């Protein structure tokens, strides 16, 4: 079965009543209908419409319609439905439908007043790239919870606690922003909140990347294209933003004002993805959970897994470089065998890692210490010797997790099911050992603390299950962290995310009412929203971001 099959097209081919298959002559015409009106067919009185009395071949539907037309709408209403016709009314306000069909939903276009920010500290301070301040009206809209709401998948927090959250137009009759998106910026612990509008975007292809302590990139990928549809640079401190310009020519990282869209957390919470163009898929799938003996035979026990997995858009999956000097975004210069299916790129201490396809098939890795000018090929542990395409396309989406610090590098399957082994190399991939422990759960997530220790977070679906940490010098020696080590309980009711800057635990909030929930659609009432985000770079000290909610 082709994983990339276009299911809509497949369904279209299976249309049981394909276009042109109905002979119009079989249908009564309006003229026939009028004729029947004149004939005045006899219809038995019905306290309520009874389909059993209107069968094909004995009493056709159009005769019934004709009869009702003769009897008159008023009488028909009484006879057929007794005045109660709620069940037959389309679930839509008639007065709204004309607009929603004949006219595109209006969205306030971003109106910006250009101001060049030459005072912003950080890596972009000297940039000539013009960042634009949202207008007061735009900011008011972006921060209005009645218009836009946060989502889990599109928030990132930097190591110093600055954050950007992308907000989608609410699915509410009160919201007039259609398919519009907005961004909100702020900082852990409070302070100013800013926001701006991004316009109408595809939620499928929208991604948010952390660049450094204060700058982020919101990017809408274009399916099948390496060039993004649109990309914005967003300053989490000032709330300013600017549209990045795409260049086709690959570039190496040779300036402090160039930044890589890093491979970040490959899981759902609010982490973004390793691929520039990819999407999370929350399709449940069957996972094997063990062997069970039954009646003398052994069968494979399986269960449904409700987690999300990554659906790659491989054409655009290779890493990109943002150059803030001229506001451009372009491909990273990469080796010829760089794997679009498995762009496991990550930068630590200047080193960039990327997945590669080995000659004759199989997964490899390559790293570069000079920003992509030269690459060194690395062989992965034998246990991971699948092709990159296989790794990217299997149901579990066994993407590789990679964490590196100098010559130390750790690998694990992101969603290995019962294979949570962590492979560690202390010599830049020349030799590998298996870590002494592996986490419980069905997912593994790797993160390097600022002090050089490796953190291995096990997850059960979207939730943290166990934390292991290494010593600084021996990454293969993993010990379990308990709550006292963390400085807070390992909150198993929170989702989590690892984005390269730190680890976040996100507690959700559900509306305190079931549908019908005044002011909310059913979809909104059923979905939880982020409530509090606890973020830490060292797993000891935690800062909290309070998200707005109803």
């Amino acid at each position, binding site marked *: *079965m082709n*994983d990339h*099959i276009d*299911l*809509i097209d497949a*369904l279209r081919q*299976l*249309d049981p*009543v394909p276009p042109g298959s*109905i002979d119009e002559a079989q*249908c009564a*015409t*309006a003229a026939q*209908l*009028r004729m029947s009106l004149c004939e005045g067919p006899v219809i038995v009185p019905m306290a309520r419409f009874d*389909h059993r009395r*209107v*069968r*094909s071949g004995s009493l*056709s*539907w*159009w005769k*019934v*319609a004709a009869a*009702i037309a003769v009897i008159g*709408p008023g009488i*028909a209403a009484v006879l*057929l439905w007794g005045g109660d*016709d709620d069940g*037959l*009314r*389309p*679930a*839509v306000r*008639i007065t709204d439908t*004309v607009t929603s*069909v*004949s006219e595109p*939903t209006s969205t306030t276009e971003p109106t910006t007043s250009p101001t060049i920010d030459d005072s912003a500290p950080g890596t972009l301070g000297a940039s000539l790239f013009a960042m634009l301040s949202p207008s007061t009206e735009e900011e008011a809209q972006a921060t209005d919870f009645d218009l836009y709401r946060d989502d889990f998948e599109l928030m990132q927090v930097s190591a110093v606690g600055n954050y950007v959250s992308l907000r*989608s137009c609410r*699915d509410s009759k009160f919201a007039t922003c*259609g*398919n519009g998106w907005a961004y909100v910026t702020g900082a852990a612990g409070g302070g100013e909140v800013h926001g701006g509008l991004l316009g109408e975007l595809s*939620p499928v292809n929208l991604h948010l990347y952390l660049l450094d302590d204060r700058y982020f990139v919101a990017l809408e990928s274009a399916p099948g294209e390496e060039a993004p549809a649109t990309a914005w640079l967003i300053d989490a401190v000032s709330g300013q933003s600017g549209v990045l310009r795409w260049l086709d020519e690959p570039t190496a990282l040779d300036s402090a004002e160039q930044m890589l869209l890093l491979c970040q957390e490959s899981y759902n919470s609010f982490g973004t993805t390793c691929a520039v163009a990819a999407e999370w*898929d*929350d*399709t*449940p*799938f*069957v996972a094997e*959970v063990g062997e*069970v003996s039954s009646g003398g035979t052994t069968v*494979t*026990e*399986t*269960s*449904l897994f409700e987690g999300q997995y990554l659906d790659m858009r491989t054409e655009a999956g290779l890493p990109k470089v943002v150059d803030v000097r001229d506001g451009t975004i372009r491909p990273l210069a990469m080796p010829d065998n760089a794997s679009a299916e498995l762009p496991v790129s990550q930068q630590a201490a200047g080193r960039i890692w990327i997945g590669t396809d080995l000659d004759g098939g199989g997964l490899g890795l390559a790293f570069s210490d000079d920003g992509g000018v030269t690459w060194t090929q690395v062989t992965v542990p034998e246990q991971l010797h699948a092709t990159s395409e296989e790794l990217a396309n299997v*149901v579990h989406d066994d993407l590789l997790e990679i964490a590196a610090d100098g010559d130390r590098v750790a690998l694990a399957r992101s969603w290995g099911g019962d294979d949570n082994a962590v492979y560690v190399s202390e010599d830049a991939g020349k030799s590998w050992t298996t870590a002494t422990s592996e986490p419980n759960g069905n997912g593994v997530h790797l993160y390097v603390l600022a002090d050089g220790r490796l953190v291995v977070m096990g997850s059960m679906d979207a939730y943290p299950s166990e934390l292991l940490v290494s010593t600084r010098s021996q990454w293969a020696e993993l010990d379990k962290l308990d709550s006292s080590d963390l400085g807070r309980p390992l909150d198993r009711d929170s989702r989590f995310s690892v984005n390269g800057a730190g680890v976040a635990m996100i507690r959700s909030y559900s509306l305190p009412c079931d549908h019908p929930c005044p002011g909310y*659609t059913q*979809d909104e009432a059923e979905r939880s929203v982020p409530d509090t985000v606890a973020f830490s770079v060292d797993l000891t000290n935690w800062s909290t971001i309070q998200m707005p909610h109803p």
Partner: protein
Amino acid sequence: MSGDMELNDRFDKLYDGHRVALNAYCRRRVARDVVDDVMAEVFLSAWRRIDQIPGGAELPWLYGVARNVIANYRRSDTRRSRLGLRLVGERREPSGDASNVMADESLVLVALERLSEGDQELLRLRAWENLSSAEMGVVLGISASAVDMRLLRARRRLGGCLKRVASKDRAPGRRVAEEGLS
């Protein structure tokens, strides 16, 4: 033209313009011998509300009524047996010698039928009625953006079901412990 004549004329246009499409909509969802019944109810409702039907969105409006009519039928246990989906029975044969394709197509339909009714309807409206998101929003009473999101999820769930179905197809001895959840 008098008011009554205008309404009559509008109903005629509504009927002539959409009877075939509505017939196809119904035939895709209910047994053929019930199609006439459903259409009767739909056009009865249309007649009664002829002055309320939104201009430019007549067909989605009719689909919306038909959807409710069919749902009402389905809620009646005594009628249920007459209304089963006829997808498998009325499936088109694939052209050419493509036994593998046929197998895959069967799996797609099996997977479709495993989805919730809401997901199925979304996918059918897009694939078979070829409606835009805005038009689907009229049928379902939700915004176009909500349609997009739900359609995305429905496609994912269909993909997931397809994988599960295919997996079971390849390994018939496999036991799915939580089959009921699927």
